C-alpha cells in the first residue's frame, strides 16, 4: 500500500503535469485532445481487470464484468475516435499525406 503522504505528492505532481501539458495546446487540438485524454483514463481497464480477477462471489463477478466491459469500451472507443480525428490533420505546406510518421 502506498503511504499517505507519498500518495499526496503523487497526486500533486501528476496534477501539475496535466495542467502544464495542456496549457500549451492550440485551440484546434482541443477536441482531439479531450478525446485523447478520454482514452488515457481508459487505463481504468487495468484496475477493473484486477477487481474481476479478485472476485470470488457471483455478485462480485457481475460487478467486475461490468467494470471490465465499460473500461474496455472507454479504451477501445476512445482510441478509435481520437485516431480518426487526428489522421485528418494535414498541412497545406506538405500536401503529400504521410508526412507524419506512421
Amino acid at each position: 500500500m502506498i503511504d499517505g503522504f507519498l500518495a499526496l505528492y503523487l497526486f500533486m505532481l501528476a496534477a501539475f503535469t496535466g495542467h502544464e501539458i495542456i496549457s500549451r495546446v492550440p485551440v484546434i487540438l482541443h477536441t482531439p485532445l479531450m478525446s485523447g485524454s478520454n482514452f488515457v483514463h481508459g487505463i481504468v481497464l487495468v484496475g477493473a481487470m484486477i477487481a474481476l480477477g479478485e472476485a470470488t462471489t457471483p455478485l462480485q463477478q457481475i460487478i467486475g464484468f461490468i467494470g471490465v466491459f465499460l473500461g474496455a469500451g472507454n479504451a477501445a472507443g476512445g482510441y478509435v475516435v481520437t485516431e480518426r480525428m487526428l489522421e485528418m490533420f494535414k498541412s497545406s505546406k506538405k500536401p503529400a499525406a504521410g508526412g507524419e510518421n506512421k
Partner: protein
Amino acid sequence: MQTAQIVSFLIQASYFVAAVLLILGIKRMSSPVTARSGIQWAGIGVLVAVVATFFHSGKPGHVLIENAALIFVAIALSTAIAWVWGKKVAMTDMPQMVALYNGMGGGSAAAIGASVLLDAAMSNNPEHALTMTQALLAVIGALIGSISLTGSVIAWAKLDGRMDKTFRFSGQQVVNGACFLAAALIGLYAVWHLETQWVVLFFALALTFGVLMTLPIGGADMPVVISLYNAFTGLAVGFEGYVQGNIALIIAGTVVGAAGTLLTRLMAKAMNRSISNVLFSNFGGGGGSAQDIKGSLKPIEADDAASLLYMADNVIIVPGYGMAVAQAQHKIWELSKNLIDRGKSVKFAIHPVAGRMPGHMNVLLAEAGVPYDLIADMDDINPEFPNCDVAIVIGANDVVNPVAKTDKSSPIYGMPILDVANAKQVIVIKRGKGTGFAGIENALFYQDNTRMLYADGQDAANKLIAGLKAVDGGGGH
C-alpha cells in the same frame, strides 16, 4: 517463489512503461505535427498494461489472473462493439461519442469502487478490510465515477437527439441538492459503517444524481459538461487507483483530471459562462427586454453574391455548426479552392466554441481537406476583419452577434465574438430566419453591409461556384 517475484516485477515495470507512454502521448497530442503518433504511443501504453495484467496471478502456481476467461470475454465483446461503432460514426457526432466512451470509463471506476466496498462490507476476512483513507477515496471515486457515467449517458442522449433538450421543474435545484447531499452523507456514513445496504443506497443515489444534474442543462452548454465529466472520470480513476495501490492509475487519472479541469475552464471562458453558471442556471429561458434592432434583413441572390466574391481580394469564411449539420464543409472547401485559384486570399475564422466542442469545427474542416494553416483562431483573425472585402458567415449565429459587445441586457453580453461586423461586406448563408442557440436576434444580419443568402449550405456553395464560373468563363485568371 522466484518466478512469481520476477513476474510481479515485470508487471510493475510494464505499468511504469505504460504511465510514461501515456504522459508522452498526451504531450505529443499537443502539437498538430506529432498528434497522430501521440495517440499511438498512448495506445501502446494501455495495451502493454492490459497484457501484463493478465499475468497478475493472486494464487501461487497459477500463471494467469483468476477469471481470465471472463475478463477476456468482457474485453473482446466491448472492444468489438466500441471499435465498430467508433469507426462508422459521423464526424459531426463525435462529441456525443466522446461523452459515451467517457461515461463508460466513469462507470468502470465506479464498478471498481463498488467491488472493493462490497467486498469489505460482506466478507469477514481481515485481508479484505480497508483503511479509512482507502474507504474514503473509494467512496469519493465511486461518487464521481457514477455521476460521470449516468451524466454522460444523458449528455449523449441529448446531443444524439434521443431526448428532449431540457427537463425543468420548479424546485429542481432543491431536489438536485438534496439528492447530492444524501449521496455524499450516506457515502460518508458508509466509510465508517461498511454495510451492504448503505453501499447499495449510496450507489443508487449517486447514479440518480448524475441524471438529475444533467437533465436541466441545455444543448449549448453540453460541451462544457462533457469536458467536466471527462475530468471527473480522470479523478475517479485516480482515486480508485489509490484504493487498489496502482500507481499507473493514480498518475494517468490525475493527469487527465487536471488537464480536463483546465480544458473545461477554457471552454466555459470562451462562452463567457462560469462553470457554476452552466451547471446551476437556466439559459435562454427568460431573455425579455433585449434592445430593439434597427434596420431590415436584405436578401441577395447567389449570382450577385458570386459577383461580390469575384471582386474581392480578401475573403474570410466563418463557419458554424449549421454548416456541419448541412454537411456543407466539402462544398465550402471547393468554393474556397475556386477562390484561391482566382488569386484571392481565403481564411477560415473559427470561434473557440464553433461546433459543439472547442476545436470541433477544426476537425470538421480537416475532414473536408482544409489545411490547418488556413484556419485562424478568433484572436488572430479579429484584427483582419477591417481589411476583409467579403466575409461569408455560414451556419454561425451567436458567435458573430455584435450585441454581445453592445447590449448589456442580452444573455450573451460579454461573450467574445468574431468581429465579422467590421468586414466591408458580409454575406450570411442561412436556411431561414430563425435565431441561434441563445434564441436572440442577431444585429449583424440587420447591418447595412450585410446581405442574406437564404439557402441550404450545400446549395448555396454550389450556386456560388457556378456563379463564379459564369463571371469569368470558368478558367480563373
